[in-house]
């Protein structure tokens, strides 16, 4: 198998990364339409919903670029005159945290005070897993391959070294996470608990913890206390999520009805 593994469609040679991303967004959107019907509290007026998605996309774009620039470190500053350095690169962790921030700011601006994130957990998992197929098929240029390894499942991405297929680990983890989330949803449904953003936070916490760990298997620039920018963002994001979860837990003990409506 050659990397990058191009797709050939109607005589066109398509790069796997943007192709899989288009499929990921389309599939995530379709799943989102299905799941939102099951989360009646997530229902919002049409325009508000659209602008909330715009806020999420803007936050995701900003977050993913900012973290990619921080991850690039001195290589970015050394060749700052080359626009390709500024254009290239994005990270899922930055996208998730930026998207979350964007939604919270959008909700504040539109005076929406109930949780909207739970309905997006499954679409996010699906989109991320499909996107990671694109990362895998892109190979070395994507910078998501792991360190060299002697393990039997190591893959040669074209540089003659057998490497950890970190993108496939991501897909495997996301599959397990989806199963865990599905079990959690079934239990909460049985207890008839209203969605209150806990599911989204649990998903985010699990993914950030996983990404923090798996980054040790990747070649990385780690000047910050021997950690990379992505790992620092994972720690900060996990701390924020934990505080938010604890707040929610405490308010649910005080008043379960209020807890279901409190989002911030």
């Amino acid at each position, binding site marked *: 198998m050659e990397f990058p593994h191009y797709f050939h469609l109607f005589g066109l040679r398509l790069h796997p990364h943007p192709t899989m991303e288009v499929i990921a967004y389309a599939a995530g959107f379709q799943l989102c339409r299905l799941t939102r019907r099951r989360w009646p509290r997530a229902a919002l007026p049409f325009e508000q919903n659209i602008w909330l998605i715009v806020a999420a996309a803007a936050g995701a774009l900003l977050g993913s670029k900012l973290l990619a620039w921080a991850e690039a470190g001195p290589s970015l500053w050394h060749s700052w005159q080359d626009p390709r350095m500024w254009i290239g690169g994005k990270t899922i962790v930055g996208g998730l945290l930026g998207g979350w921030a964007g939604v919270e700011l959008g909700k504040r601006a539109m005076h929406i005070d109930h949780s909207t994130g739970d309905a997006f957990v499954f679409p996010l998992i699906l989109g991320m897993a499909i996107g990671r197929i694109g990362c895998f098929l892109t190979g070395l240029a994507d910078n998501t391959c792991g360190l060299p390894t002697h393990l039997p499942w190591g893959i040669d991405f074209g540089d003659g070294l057998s490497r950890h297929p970190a993108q496939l680990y991501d897909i495997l983890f996301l599959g397990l996470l989806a199963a865990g989330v599905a079990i959690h949803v079934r239990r909460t449904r049985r207890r008839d608990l209203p969605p209150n953003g806990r599911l989204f936070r649990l998903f985010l916490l699990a993914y950030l913890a996983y990404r923090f760990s798996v980054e040790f298997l990747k070649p990385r*620039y780690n000047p910050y206390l021997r950690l990379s920018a992505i790992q620092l963002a994972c720690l900060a994001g996990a701390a924020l999520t934990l505080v938010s979860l604890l707040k929610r837990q405490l308010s649910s003990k005080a008043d379960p009805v209020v807890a279901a409506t409190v989002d911030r």
Partner: protein
Amino acid sequence: MPCREEQILTEQNPESLNYAGPSVGRPPLPLKVRRRRLIYGFCTGIGLTVLAVLIGVVAGNGKPGLGAVLLILLLVPGCKLLAALVLAFIRDWRSFGGGLALSSLLIFLIFLGTCAGFAR
């Protein structure tokens, strides 16, 4: 001459003030129309970008220069986002503006570099 009490009884009641809320405005457009406008906005956004890319490719004889690429990357989405922001304040065109903004952001998200590319 009528006494004071009779005068009060025969006086007409002063006009009562209308405390009702502001007059009810035009109802919003049907959901179907708003959905259609969102799709139109989204398609317009994609179309504008495709047009800009084609012009860039033709102008650069198949290989657009870096300046042209940057112009496409900054000018076209910038104009689209500005237009979307203005449309967000016009009630009937909010969904069209949303579609325009979404197209811009999604194109950026999908085509702006691979994961952490150029890093390290």
